[in-house]
C-alpha cells in the first residue's frame, strides 16, 4: 500500500454512478405476481380426481396432511375404490417439499402459484386444497406427471412362455415372480388399502404386500390365509377386481396383487409346508357338525374356517377331485392340477373331511345331510350351461365350453377338429378357445360387442391372441348349419352388428341387415353363461329355500330362508368368480358360528 492510495480513494467513487439508474425495486402493486411456472405454493386438490388414498398423508414427514371427511356439498365420491376422505394441509407444519405431489398416484394433488397468506389468527392455517381454493385449477405450478412422479407406474413384467411355445402343451403359461421381482413389485404398492374394499373377500392386501416388500414372505402367507384358504388358486386365476381400483392404476399399471399373492403362496411347495408356515390356531372341538355340499371354493372356505373354529366339518363332492369350477372350469395351463391338490391337501390336514365321488341326491340324500348336521352349507356353483338359442345347437360337434373344459381337465378326449368357433366373450370363452388352440385348432371367437367390451380379462384376451386365436367382434350367430349327415356341424352363419349408443346403458349391438356371413367349422363351443342345478335338493327343502332368478336368496351372513341352510358361491352371488365364492364361504362361517354358538349357548 502506498502512502497515498489515490486509486483506492477514487475507484470506489464509481459506485456513485448507480444513483442515476433506475431502482430495481418492484412496485408494490405488481409484487408477487411473477412467480415461476414451477413455484411451490399452496396445494390444490382436484376433489373429483382424488381417490382419497392418503398417500400424501403418509409421505408427509411433518404429519401436516390429515385425511378428513368433507361435507356432502362437495360431492365427494364414496364409491368403492374411493375412501371418501380428502387431504387437509396444516400450514403450521407444511414445509412445501412437494413430496405429496410427487407421490400422488392420481396426480390430483398439485401446488399452485399462490403463496401469500398472512393472518393474526394462528388457528386459521388449516388449508383444504380444492375447497379453499376452487380457483386453484388455473394456477397450477408444481405438478407431477407420470415421468416425474415418484410412483412407479410400470409393473414388473411377468415372465411368460412364448405364444408359440404355449400352444404346444398345457404347461403353465405364467412363470411367476422370483424373489427380486416380487420385492420390486411389492414395493410399488402404496398400502392405501382401497383394494381391500373391492375384494369380495376383503383380503388384507396392503399388509401382505408390505410383508413381501419387507422380505417376510412367511408373514405374508399367514396374512393371506387369514381369510382365504385357496390363495394359490386365487394367485393364479383370480378375477382381481382389486387391481381395477388400485391407486397406481389411475395413471399407470396396477400393482400385480394377484401375482404377488401367487408369489407368496408358491413358496410353500407342499401342503405340509403350508401347514408349517401358516401354523393356524385350531380351536377345541365344540361338538357341532356342519355338512357342506360341493367342494368348490365357497364350500372349501367354509370348511376350512369352520374346522379352525372347532366344528366337525364334512364336505360332499360329486366329482373325483375337489375345487369345483376352479378344478374343472379352468384349463390346466392357468391352474395346474397339483396346485389345487396341494391346497386341498392342506385343508384335509387341518381336519376337513372331504367325501369325493359323492353326489348328493344320488349317493346320499339331501335329507340325510340336513338331519345329520347342525348346519348345512350349499356351495354347488353353476354347472348347467346356458343354451345359445340358435338353430342347430344340439348337433354333435356343438359343445358348451364348461362341458368341454370339464372333459379336457378330466382327461377325457374330445376332438375339436381343425376349425373351431367359440361364441362368447367371457373368461370361459377365452379358456375354451385357448384350450382348443392347444389342440392345434384354428380358433375364432365370435362376440356380439367390441373387444373392449369383452368381460374377459385383457390379459387373457392378449394371451389368446398371442396364441393365434382370432377374435371376431360384433358378430352375432344366427344359425348353425349341419353337414349332409345332419348330425355334425358344418358351418355357422353369423350377422355383423354395429354398436348403438344408448342412454344410461352400455352400447347395444344391432345387427346390420344383410351382412350375414358363413364360416365353415368343425366344432362350435358355446360359452355364454351357466346356471345352477338344484335337482338334488328334495322338494320339501326346495320350497323352503327362496330363489330369485335361479339364485338362492341369502341374508348378509349367507343364511337362506331356512335358518339351518347356508349357501354361497355362484349359486348365490351374481359375480360368478372364485373370490366371491370364497367370500361367501367366509361369511357363512361367521353366520354359522353366530347361529350355533350364540343361539344354543
Amino acid at each position, binding site marked *: 500500500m502506498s502512502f497515498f492510495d489515490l486509486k483506492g480513494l477514487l475507484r470506489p467513487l464509481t459506485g456513485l454512478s448507480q444513483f442515476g439508474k433506475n431502482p430495481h425495486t418492484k412496485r408494490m402493486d405488481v409484487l408477487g405476481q411473477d412467480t415461476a411456472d414451477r413455484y411451490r405454493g399452496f396445494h390444490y386438490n382436484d376433489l373429483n380426481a382424488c381417490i382419497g388414498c392418503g398417500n400424501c398423508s403418509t409421505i408427509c414427514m411433518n404429519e401436516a396432511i390429515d385425511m378428513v371427511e368433507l361435507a356432502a356439498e362437495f360431492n365427494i365420491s364414496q364409491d368403492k375404490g374411493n375412501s371418501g376422505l380428502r387431504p387437509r394441509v396444516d400450514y403450521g407444519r407444511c414445509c412445501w417439499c412437494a413430496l405429496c405431489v410427487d407421490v400422488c398416484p392420481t396426480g390430483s394433488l398439485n401446488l399452485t402459484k399462490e403463496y401469500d397468506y398472512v393472518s393474526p389468527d394462528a388457528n386459521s392455517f388449516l388449508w383444504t386444497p380444492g375447497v379453499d381454493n376452487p380457483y386453484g385449477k388455473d394456477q397450477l405450478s408444481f405438478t407431477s406427471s407420470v415421468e416425474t412422479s415418484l410412483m412407479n407406474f410400470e409393473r414388473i413384467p411377468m415372465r411368460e412362455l412364448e405364444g408359440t411355445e404355449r400352444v404346444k402343451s398345457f404347461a403353465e403359461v405364467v412363470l411367476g415372480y422370483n424373489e427380486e421381482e416380487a420385492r420390486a413389485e411389492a414395493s410399488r404398492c402404496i398400502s392405501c*388399502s382401497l383394494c381391500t374394499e373391492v375384494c369380495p373377500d376383503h383380503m*388384507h392386501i396392503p399388509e401382505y404386500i408390505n410383508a413381501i416388500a419387507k422380505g417376510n414372505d412367511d*408373514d405374508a402367507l399367514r396374512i393371506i390365509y*387369514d381369510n382365504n384358504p385357496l390363495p394359490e388358486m386365487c394367485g393364479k386365476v383370480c378375477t382381481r377386481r382389486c387391481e381395477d381400483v388400485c391407486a397406481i392404476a389411475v395413471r399407470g399399471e396396477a400393482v400385480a396383487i394377484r401375482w404377488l399373492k401367487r408369489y407368496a403362496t408358491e413358496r410353500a411347495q407342499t401342503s405340509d409346508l403350508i401347514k408349517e408356515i401358516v401354523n393356524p390356531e385350531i380351536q377345541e372341538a365344540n361338538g357341532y357338525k356342519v355338512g357342506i355340499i360341493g367342494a368348490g371354493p365357497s364350500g372349501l372356505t367354509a370348511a376350512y374356517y369352520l374346522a379352525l373354529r372347532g366344528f366337525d366339518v364334512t364336505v360332499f363332492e360329486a366329482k373325483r377331485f375337489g375345487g369345483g369350477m376352479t378344478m374343472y372350469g379352468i384349463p390346466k395351463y392357468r391352474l395346474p392340477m397339483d396346485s389345487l391338490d396341494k391346497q386341498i391337501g392342506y385343508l384335509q390336514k387341518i381336519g376337513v373331511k372331504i367325501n369325493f365321488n359323492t353326489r348328493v341326491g344320488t349317493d346320499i340324500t339331501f335329507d340325510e345331510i340336513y338331519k345329520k348336521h347342525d348346519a348345512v352349507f350349499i356351495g354347488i356353483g353353476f354347472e348347467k350351461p346356458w343354451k345359445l338359442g340358435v338353430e342347430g345347437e344340439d348337433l354333435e360337434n356343438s359343445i358348451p365350453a364348461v362341458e368341454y373344459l370339464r372333459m379336457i381337465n378330466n382327461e377325457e378326449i374330445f376332438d375339436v377338429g381343425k376349425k373351431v368357433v367359440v361364441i362368447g366373450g367371457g373368461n370361459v370363452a377365452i379358456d375354451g378357445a385357448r384350450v382348443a388352440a392347444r389342440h392345434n385348432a384354428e380358433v375364432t371367437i365370435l362376440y356380439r360387442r367390441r373387444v373392449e367390451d369383452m368381460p374377459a380379462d385383457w390379459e387373457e384376451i392378449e394371451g389368446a391372441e398371442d396364441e393365434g386365436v382370432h377374435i371376431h367382434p360384433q358378430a352375432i350367430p344366427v344359425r348353425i348349419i349341419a353337414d349332409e349327415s345332419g348330425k355334425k356341424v358344418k358351418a355357422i352363419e353369423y350377422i355383423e352388428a354395429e354398436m348403438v349408443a344408448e342412454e344410461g346403458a352400455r352400447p347395444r349391438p344391432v345387427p346390420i341387415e344383410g351382412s350375414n356371413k358363413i364360416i365353415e367349422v368343425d366344432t362350435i363351443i358355446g360359452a355364454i353363461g351357466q346356471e345352477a342345478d338344484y335337482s338334488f335338493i328334495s322338494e320339501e327343502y326346495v320350497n323352503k329355500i327362496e330363489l330369485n332368478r335361479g339364485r338362492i336368496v341369502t341374508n348378509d351372513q349367507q343364511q337362506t330362508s331356512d335358518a339351518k341352510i347356508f349357501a354361497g358361491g355362484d349359486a348365490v352371488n351374481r359375480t360368478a368368480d372364485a373370490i366371491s365364492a370364497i367370500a361367501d364361504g367366509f361369511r357363512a362361517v361367521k353366520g354359522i358360528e353366530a347361529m350355533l354358538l350364540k343361539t344354543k349357548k
Partner: protein
Amino acid sequence: MGTTYSKEEILAQQLQTAFEHLITEVVRKDTVFAFATKEQVSSILLYAKEKLGYISFVHLSCVDWLESGEFELVYIIWSPETKINLFVKTRLDRENPSMENTDMIWRQINTYQREIREMFGVEFPGFVGEKEFILEDWEDAPPMRRDFDTLEYVNDTFFEREGREDKQDVRERIAKRSGEEIPDFAKKYSRE
C-alpha cells in the same frame, strides 16, 4: 508379482502389517474401513498421520447400535496424496462408555468429543472442554441415544395446536366400511 494392487488395497495392507489383528476392509473406491479395538485407535491415527500421510482429520461420529448394546465411534481421516477416506471404527460398550481422548493428535477432535459427550454420554477421560455445548440445562438422557424418544419428550413438554382432531385413517375407514377385520399380527404391516 504380476498383480497390481489398488491404492486402497495397499493402504489396507500397510495397516495390517503395522497392526496385528487389525481387520481392514476395502469397501469401495476411496474408502477403506479399519475395525480397531478401543486401545488401538490412537496409535492407528497417529501412525496414519505420521507415517502414511493421512494428515487431514475429517470427521468423528458416534453410532448407537442399541440392539447389540454398543456405541461405534468412527474416525474418518483423509490423505491429500492418496485421497482415500480411511474410516477407523471402534466399538464401545454402551454401559458407561468411555474412550481415550485423542484431541492432541488433531485439536479439531476436541469439538467432536464435546458433542459426542453431550449427545451420547460417551466420556473422554482427561479431555478438557466445556461441559455444555449445544444443549442448555438438559436433564434428560443424552438425546442422540436411540432409546431417547424425542416424540414422547415433545408430547410431554410442548403443545400442539388444536383443530386437527377430526383426522381419519384411510385404512381404518376402509376396513370399517367393508367390515374387514385385520388380524393383530398383520397390523404391523399396515401403513403407519
